[in-house]
């Protein structure tokens, strides 16, 4: 493919090459200037790194849902951000009940586990219901049809939850134990910023082993390879798809609670939309359909958002760099996809669907 292009359209490669060079040089200059200016202390950089890791692991958890569904149905589940919102928003009320009764701060571990289970349950059920009502009847329809359905489902879910819980912003109560500062490599970090990435990693490893080692995981992989052959092998495709949606939903629900612990404010019906987009970007960055890729993509995106403006853009002398955070992320996405059209890790299913 590439070679054929190369033979015929050298100017295109030249433009793309220049594009890469310009951006890379700009990044290098930015970093060099920022580092030389030494405006920020080590401590401040450390704060950004740990916050970026926590944020990135939340993106990664949400991205799992996109990547799993895409791997099997080749469909962008646009409503997945809303699934994440549903868990996070529902549990905010539970968290306040726990907080008011003193349970949250007396037994933080147990309370948070219960919250995660409830959020995962809500998100899982919702995801399965949406799949049953909106996506299942569309198996075999052209690709754009389920995409539009998913966009419709996204709006419907957002405004359903607005109707249910109201439009006002809410916040998770603070868990005192998680706010304590711990020292890592000589830097003081709130405990929550270590707990969130660690728990997310455990969940994602769990998912990885489920997909790679269990019988159901094998079935999932074979469905993603070829549905018709899988069906001939006696695999119940509908069941595999339901399980896929359930897994994605559960992880999104957990991500909702992690988000509430890490960053308690801003909980309302609209909170899922942007993280959903970011998580999808992360999944694409890592190579969509690829679990490890989504994990790396999420963390990369989290770190980029956290460090990028101060590290790269500020050195270029641009005012109000923080405004351009998302522009930077998307530019990096374009750059990476030009370098590696299949994402950092490559997609599992490569070309065959084209």
């Amino acid at each position: 493919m590439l070679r054929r292009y190369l033979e015929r359209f050298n100017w295109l490669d030249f433009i793309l090459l220049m594009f890469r060079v310009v951006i890379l040089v700009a990044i290098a200059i930015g970093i060099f200037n920022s580092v030389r200016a030494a405006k920020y202390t080590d401590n401040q950089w450390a704060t950004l790194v740990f916050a970026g890791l926590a944020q990135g692991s939340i993106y990664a958890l949400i991205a799992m849902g996109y990547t799993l569904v895409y791997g099997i149905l080749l469909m962008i589940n646009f409503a997945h951000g809303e699934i994440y919102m549903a868990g996070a928003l529902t549990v905010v009320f539970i968290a306040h009940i726990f907080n008011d009764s003193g349970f949250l701060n007396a037994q933080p571990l147990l309370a948070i586990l219960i919250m995660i289970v409830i959020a995962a349950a809500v998100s899982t059920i919702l995801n399965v219901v949406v799949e049953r009502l909106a996506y299942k009847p569309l198996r075999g329809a052209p690709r754009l049809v389920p995409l539009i359905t998913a966009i419709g489902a996204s709006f419907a879910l957002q405004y359903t939850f607005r109707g249910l819980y109201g439009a006002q912003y809410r916040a998770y109560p603070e868990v005192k134990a998680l706010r304590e500062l711990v020292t890592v490599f000589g830097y003081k970090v709130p405990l929550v910023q270590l707990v969130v990435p660690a728990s997310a990693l455990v969940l994602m490893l769990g998912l990885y082993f489920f997909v790679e080692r269990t019988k159901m995981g094998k079935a999932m992989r074979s469905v993603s390879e070829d549905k018709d052959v899988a069906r001939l092998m006696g695999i119940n495709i509908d069941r595999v798809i339901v399980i896929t949606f359930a897994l994605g939903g559960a992880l999104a629900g957990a991500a909702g609670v992690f988000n509430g612990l890490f960053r308690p404010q801003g909980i309302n019906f609209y909170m899922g939309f942007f993280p959903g987009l970011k998580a999808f970007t992360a999944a694409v960055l890592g190579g969509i359909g690829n679990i490890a890729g989504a994990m790396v993509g999420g963390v990369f995106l989290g770190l980029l958002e956290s460090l990028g403006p101060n590290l790269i853009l500020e050195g270029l002398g641009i005012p109000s760099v923080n405004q351009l955070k998302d522009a930077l992320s998307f530019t990096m996405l374009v750059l990476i996809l030009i370098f590696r059209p299949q994402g950092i890790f490559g997609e599992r299913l490569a070309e065959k669907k084209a």
Partner: protein
Amino acid sequence: MNNQIGPNWRTIVRFGLIGGVVALYLSVIGMVEAFSARNLIGTFITLAQILIFGGPFVAGYLTAREFKDKPRTTIILCGLAAGAMASIFQVMLILIAHAVDLRFMFVSISPGLMEILTFGQGQYLGSLILAALSAVMGAIGAGYFLLPGTISRTLTSAVVVTLGVGLFSENVNQILSSNWLSLIGGRSVARLLIQQKSLNPIVALVLFLAVGGLTYWRATRAKAQVESDDESPATGRQKRFRTVMLIIAIGALLGLPWIVGRFLSQVLFMVGLYIMMGLGLNIVVGYAGLLDLGYVAFFAFGAYTMGVITSASPLGLTNLNFWIALPICAIVGVLTGFVLGVPVLRMRGDYLAIVTLGFGEIIRILALSDWLAPFIGGAQGILHIPYPSIAGFQFKTPEWMYYLVIIGSLLAGFLTIRLRESRLGRQWMAMREDEDVAEAMGINLVQTKLLAFAIGAAFSALAGGIFAARLGTIFPHTFNLLWSINALSLIIVGGMGSIPGVMVGALILVGLPELLREFQEYRLLMYGILLVVMMLVKPEGFVPAARRQQELRAHAKESAVGTAAD
């Protein structure tokens, strides 16, 4: 499947519960309470009642359909049971809400809602009334199914039209009080027909009978005609008829803004704008098969170009007039189409989708940024973009701007048709079907793709320029993802690749929400549900392109994964 002796209880319970879930859903998301005061007819039929009893009615109807071979009384009784079943969730809601305060979590479960659901009779008596009325509605639903076809069709259209006029009463009112109708007493008629958005009961009755009668008459006549008439070839009379219809259609198109009034002209203006965008996106997605989720970027480029060129504020560069600026907008559109098209040339399908989405966001963020604020205004936007004017006449009102977008859409439509039939159009479609094969056939992919992006972008930028001139001020917040989503949704709801489809899609997805402005925060909810339902019921769209319909059928046969996106 069902036993022969009695009705199958499981079916009744199933449909009853489905109806119940729908009714419960509408209650707990607050729609019932929000529209309890919205009268449709007189003061006795409100929108809330339809929301409450719609579920039981449908449950009764569906149950009846399932038992159509049973005796009539059994069917009615089954409907009754299903209707009663459908109220069960709401009754549970009433009882629970009285026992526990759910409001800290579910804001819509308010005393007001309870008052409506229990008809002000307290929880026990109220629940009984609700259950009884739901049962009756279920029975009516079942009875409705039993009616002979002609009568039920007559009833349906009469009810739908009457309630529809009640629902859109505000717009009926606007049309009647618009410019020339009000001169011949339209406003007084409006006042007589509609009070506080509600249809006068007598008028409603007249309307009901009139529509019912008309439908019935037509139905019986049609039957008679089918029996007597054979198919006859197109005669000269029919041809003349067609010409007359065409002239009437053109006349209506030209006269529309003066018939419907100012606000509806504004709605039509927006619809026209979306038709232009839809036609452009249709080239990119529908013909060339390149999924673009960042189409708003080109729209923004057009609007900002118009702003920077023509604005009378200090940001304005040249003070050129609108008519010179408009082609420049199109040229800028073409250029940005090329520039944004180059990096994504090698990306396929969903990678393309996310990258274009990213472009849309990047453009919006840059427009907003303090960095570029000295040139394009940043958060403060660009003010004082002049109205288009010809020889001193300013296109100030939506009625006049309507003509501008009509011309724009006709132009876009014409170009689209010409392109579709051209060599380039066939290349696009070949590329959509299979890139590798297309390339093997000697199609220059780079050129073909870039042209699709550039032409699509030009349409969008033109629409953006007109939009900026209508608005007079542009702010970066305007150019959000919703525009891209709207444009993509409307071409798919209308029928991808189809030009009439774009128009129908724009009318439904852009026009309808504007007519239902009073639903405010429920507008996007209904929009979302509409999208889902549309895709489930008519995945090929309202007016599918002929070629596309065949593809869909072929796909359905093969049950293969579709290839629309790549």
